[in-house]
């Protein structure tokens, strides 16, 4: 049976997650339980959502450097307005998603580099977040808290949520017509344009959808942490990019994989715990996390090369 290149793309991320998980189980057998798994992975849920958002942007050959500050902003809204007066909170979120669509329009119409525009926006979101919550505080909406701490039977919530996110986004991005056209924009926008689609509208829709997932990420984060802070998710910018790449995505060419992105987010979260279990001092953890990334990406290059050689045979 012939394996599609998309499946090959998923082998390395899935294998690296399995290896890492096996190593964690070996070092700390107590994690091999309902509670253990939930604790290992529950912080992965907001990261996975942010990674999906980043992946959507990367599917149209752009990059969002404001992801971290935007998720922080959303977390602050969730911990303040959404909790005290839900209607206003929802309105703010809708506005924020509209702004994301607007960013897509501006980037497309003015042919601006997305990195510059989103870097600028990151200061806007950061500033708004500080205005709302100058000091850490706020409280999670009850339903968000309930959702993130729910205890479904047999499989812990963190795993259920990850699978759900992967399944839904796989459907949207890989199976639906909308997803196909969005990835087409990343692959060759001119041919999409020639076929009569409005690339402007597609970009705006993609950005809006990315904004939506980032909003979900903020709410999920507050559901876990119960309060928010203006700098709560700053590292999500780079984590989300790393997650997409780790999961088999590429910076250009519309080659993305939602399942891979969720796996990438889980791997990154697990890498942190793994290094703690190894008793590596926090000073070295960032470097060690980088080393894990390098190893996984090297494996992927190797696999790509093998695949190419196979093809030429």
């Amino acid at each position, binding site marked *: 049976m012939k394996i599609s*290149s998309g499946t090959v793309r998923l082998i390395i991320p899935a294998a690296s997650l399995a290896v890492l998980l096996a190593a964690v189980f070996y070092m700390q057998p107590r994690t091999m339980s309902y509670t253990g798994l939930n604790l290992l992975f529950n912080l992965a849920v907001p990261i996975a959502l942010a990674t999906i958002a980043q992946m959507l942007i990367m599917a149209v050959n752009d990059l969002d450097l404001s992801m971290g500050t935007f998720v922080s902003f959303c977390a602050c809204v969730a911990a303040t307005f959404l909790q005290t007066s839900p209607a206003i909170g929802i309105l703010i979120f809708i506005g924020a998603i509209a702004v994301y669509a607007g960013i897509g329009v501006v980037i497309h119409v003015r042919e601006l580099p997305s990195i510059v525009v989103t870097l600028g926006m990151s200061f806007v979101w950061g500033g708004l977040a500080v205005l709302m919550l100058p000091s850490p505080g706020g409280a999670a909406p009850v339903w968000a808290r309930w959702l993130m701490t729910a205890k479904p039977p047999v499989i812990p919530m963190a795993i259920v949520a990850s699978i759900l996110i992967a399944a839904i986004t796989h459907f949207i991005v890989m199976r639906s017509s909308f997803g196909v056209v969005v990835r087409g924009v990343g692959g*060759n926008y001119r041919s999409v344009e020639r*076929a009569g689609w409005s690339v402007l509208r597609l970009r705006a829709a993609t950005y809006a959808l990315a904004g939506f997932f980032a909003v979900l990420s903020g709410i999920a984060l507050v559901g876990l942490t119960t309060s928010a802070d203006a700098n709560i998710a700053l590292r999500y910018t780079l984590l989300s990019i790393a997650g997409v790449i780790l999961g088999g995505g590429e910076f250009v060419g519309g080659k993305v994989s939602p399942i891979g992105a969720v796996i990438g987010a889980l791997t990154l979260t697990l890498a942190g715990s793994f290094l703690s279990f190894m008793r590596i001092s926090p000073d070295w953890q960032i470097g060690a996390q980088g080393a894990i990334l390098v190893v996984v990406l090297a494996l992927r290059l190797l696999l790509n090369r093998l695949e190419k050689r196979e093809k*030429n045979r």
Partner: protein
Amino acid sequence: MITVHERQEVVAARGIRVTFGAVKALDGADLVIHSGECLGLVGHNGAGKSTIVNVINGGLTPHDGTVSYSGSDAAHGIATARANGVRCVFQELSLCPNLTVNENTRIMHTGLKGWNWRSRALKLVETQLAEVFPGHDIDCDSTVDDLSIAERQMVEIAISFAGVRERPKLVILDEPTSSLDAGLAAQLMSYIRRFVGQGGSVLLISHILGEILSTCDRVVVMKDGRVVADRTASEFSTRTLVEAMGNVVREQELHRGQDKRGSTPVLSMPPRRGRGLPFEAYRGEMIGFAGLGGHGQTQALLDLYLSRNSNWWPSRKEELAFVAGDRSLNGTFPLWSILKNLSIASLGSLSSRSLVDADREDELGAGWKKRIEIRTPDMNNRILSLSGGNQQKVLFARALATTAKTVLMDDPMRGVDVGTKQEVYDILRSEAATGRTFIWYSTEMDEIRLCDRVYVFREGAIVSELIGEEITEKNVLAASFTSGEAA
């Protein structure tokens, strides 16, 4: 073939003027296409063929003149053109490489809405592929990336001819056979005849005049942004067609020199994949790589290149130069000027103390501009301001300007017009006379015939070697198809 009843105008472009800056791309061109006819469009590179195609498919708004679809000129644009059944296969492949064949079909056919579009798209493209290219073995569930360049072209052609609810009225094919081998090209031409017989129309642009003359009902010749001849195909012969384009037909003088094989080859390679013949090249030889498209010729060129030049640490000595075939993929630097694109390979010899000597660079540019006649007012213009053929000339000049003794060429004449080709052939001959070795992969028989020696490839290995007078179309085809005894 001649229909008596009044034929409808599918698309009519009249008095079209388009200017890009100071360059007049179209200067009052008329092009009318009727239903049930195959119209051939020929002309030099830069004659305005691609521009008028872009006007017809709605991608470009003319500065003057009218475009009407089925008699109405109310609206213009990509959407209008598509709504009127105009489809276009572009010269540069325009599929999305990251998507599968059926997903690409979905993008091109906005009518494939709703649930279950995947299987409908699959069925649509598979039926159409089987109809145009019977006996193909393309898996329509695979990603376009995984297909060879010929297969991509086949898919793109099939997608354009397919129709969800109604068939397209006009299909524009811009150099559709540039990456197809003779067998596939013949299948396409006979399909075009069937499609036209059913009342569709085709606008065929090709540099292979034989195709034009055998397939088209009517031929339009363009030159300098104008239509200079518009007659039925039977009134043309290859010679008159070339004359109409403004070329002087030159009988190909095949004056082959004596055998140049000396004692030590400049480049050699053991039999590929452990079978077939070994490869050897001697000083001053012109060696052809022939065979059907995509049978390992490009890979052989790359291996030859890497055998002298490490992948990790490029050597400073320039022994080999490479002329890429796919201009946009690995040929030009699209943001750079013509001069920079030309001089990039010889910067080492142009610089003193690691700084590029601008005067010497200009001198080099001016010299090559004159020698190969790059048609531009200023070498500092962007490379993309040139037509495709002229871009290719710059790439040739880039390789020839180096001190490299051996030049590898990966089907570089794809989609280049006859006049430019002749000019390049002359340059190649004179360069070979000075002792340069050329290794040339080409899908065109005329070019293969220019070579001193030809290696025929099949399934990744060299199956036959033809020398001098043995190089005929018949021999090359025979070697490409027979199951090699040498294996």
